């Protein structure tokens, strides 16, 4: 019986998240369109509101092409690895008090593990497609994710030190309900490092080198088509949502807001996550892509020292306050 309820909850979470992913693409196209003085999708439904559904149907019925020279089992497995790991990361996210599928004590570590595994899928996709563009995309992704996992992890060490826990619900609880007690203020350096590393982790502009359209066609997803392409797309957007949720939980006080919303406790959480996603899109509409050596220099020479400094300062603060 318990398993049945859990399965039902999982199905509900999946359905809701996938719906959000679909409309996140709409949100993105509309915002970027208006920022570029265009309109974005306008044709399907009122102001293009049914566009994501049309896109979904289209990619579902499109021909699925597997290149002749591809490593077939890996080629088929890669998008599934990407999507499954990203979906697994959703399990530990607390959307509100008690609204969490798996309230495990190593939540933050689990998320790191899953987002690293997702890049494994990307590398496999790049390798298995047997094409120079996908291979270069996969290689770039590997180097980028390895470089940016470190500042990302280090930037959250400060949060772990302050809250004394890796459990995401406890991190939120430790920040208190007041808007002034969220970790954004004591961890401003950590937030800065986290924010940049977050863009790089999700392969978003200005760090979208793994799928740099101008040089690599479409990077690691060049050889994919139809629903398999859509799986990568979904994985990328779920990844964005997961990372935005982590940012919300660790720095912006999770589901706590200025006042409680009756009947719908995750209101503030969703609002903050969408704030993050808006910034993602806003940055995409504004910035050009980093050069590869600049990307590496930023990660290793600026973000890691900054994150280490942040850990030191946090430790100092903790000692002094105590």
């Amino acid at each position, binding site marked *: 019986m318990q398993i049945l309820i859990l399965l039902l909850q999982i199905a509900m979470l999946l359905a809701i998240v996938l719906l959000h992913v679909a409309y996140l693409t709409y949100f993105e196209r509309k915002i970027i369109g208006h920022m*570029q*003085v265009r*309109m974005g999708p306008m044709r399907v439904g009122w102001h293009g509101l049914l566009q994501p559904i049309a896109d979904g149907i289209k990619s579902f019925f499109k021909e699925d092409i597997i290149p002749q020279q591809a490593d077939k089992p890996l080629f088929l497995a890669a998008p599934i690895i990407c999507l499954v790991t990203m979906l697994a990361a959703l399990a530990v996210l607390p959307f509100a008090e008690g609204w969490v599928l798996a309230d495990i004590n190593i939540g933050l570590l689990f998320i790191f593990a899953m987002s690293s595994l997702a890049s494994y899928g990307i590398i496999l996709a790049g390798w298995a497609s047997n094409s120079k563009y996908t291979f270069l995309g996969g290689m770039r992704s590997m180097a980028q994710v390895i470089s940016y996992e470190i500042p990302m992890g280090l930037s959250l060490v400060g949060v772990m030190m302050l809250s004394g826990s890796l459990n995401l619900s406890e991190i939120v609880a430790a920040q208190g309900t007041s808007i002034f007690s969220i970790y954004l203020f004591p961890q401003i350096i950590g937030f800065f490092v986290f924010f940049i590393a977050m863009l790089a982790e999700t392969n978003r502009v200005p760090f979208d080198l793994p799928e740099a359209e101008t040089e690599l066609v479409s990077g690691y997803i060049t050889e994919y088509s139809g629903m398999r392409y859509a799986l990568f797309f979904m994985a990328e957007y779920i990844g964005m949502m997961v990372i935005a949720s982590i940012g919300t939980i660790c720095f912006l006080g999770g589901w706590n807001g200025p006042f409680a919303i009756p009947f719908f406790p995750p209101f503030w959480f969703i609002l903050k996550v969408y704030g993050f996603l808006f910034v993602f899109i806003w940055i995409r509409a*504004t*910035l050009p892509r980093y050069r590869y050596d600049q990307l590496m220099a930023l990660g290793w020479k600026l973000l890691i020292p900054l994150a280490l400094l942040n850990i030191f300062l946090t430790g100092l603060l903790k000692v002094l306050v105590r």
Partner: protein
Amino acid sequence: MKVQYKAKRNLLETILQVEILQGLALTLRKLFSRPITRQYPDEKPPMYAGFRGQHALVRDPVTNDSKCIGCMRCATVCPSRCIHIKTHPGDSGQRLIDQYAIDVLRCVFCGYCVEVCPVGAITMTEVFEYASYDREAIYFDQEILLANWDRFLEQTGYDDTYVNPFWRPRGGLESRLPAAMRRDVPADWTIEGQFVGTKIRQPPACKLITDTEAAHD
């Protein structure tokens, strides 16, 4: 020589990355601006004089047929050789048209045929939506070209004096234009008022040679 590529920034500007913030401010401002998109099939673009659209043969109200005299000037001047004319001599030595066809898929829409026609028989209308799924439908023979003209007059409300100012050969003397091109036109259609690029032509700095002065030479 040392080239300074970047403007100097002070420490605060470096930390805050002011250039990125300026860029973000610009995109945020543009988010609330009015899109310049024209929703095309619902909202048609404005048509300007001199638009070189679908070809048409002007229907002569007297003979109820094409004005074409078969002089072959359009077929000769056509750079893409897409006008196919066949004639046979009539009783009094005039040419009678057997076939007048334009292969629009080869046409480059230069408008030379319209400019060169001495009787104003061929013209280009403002119609631009005539795409088709088969090639035969865009190979215009005489009947289709005449029908194009009828449909154009019906849709736009022009009468058969429709002469586009852009197609009057520019800079020449009025008297040397063929008779069909010499018909009365509004003041802004005359040589001085003709369209040059997107601007209406300004009165020239040098004096124009008028017809009377040309007669003196």
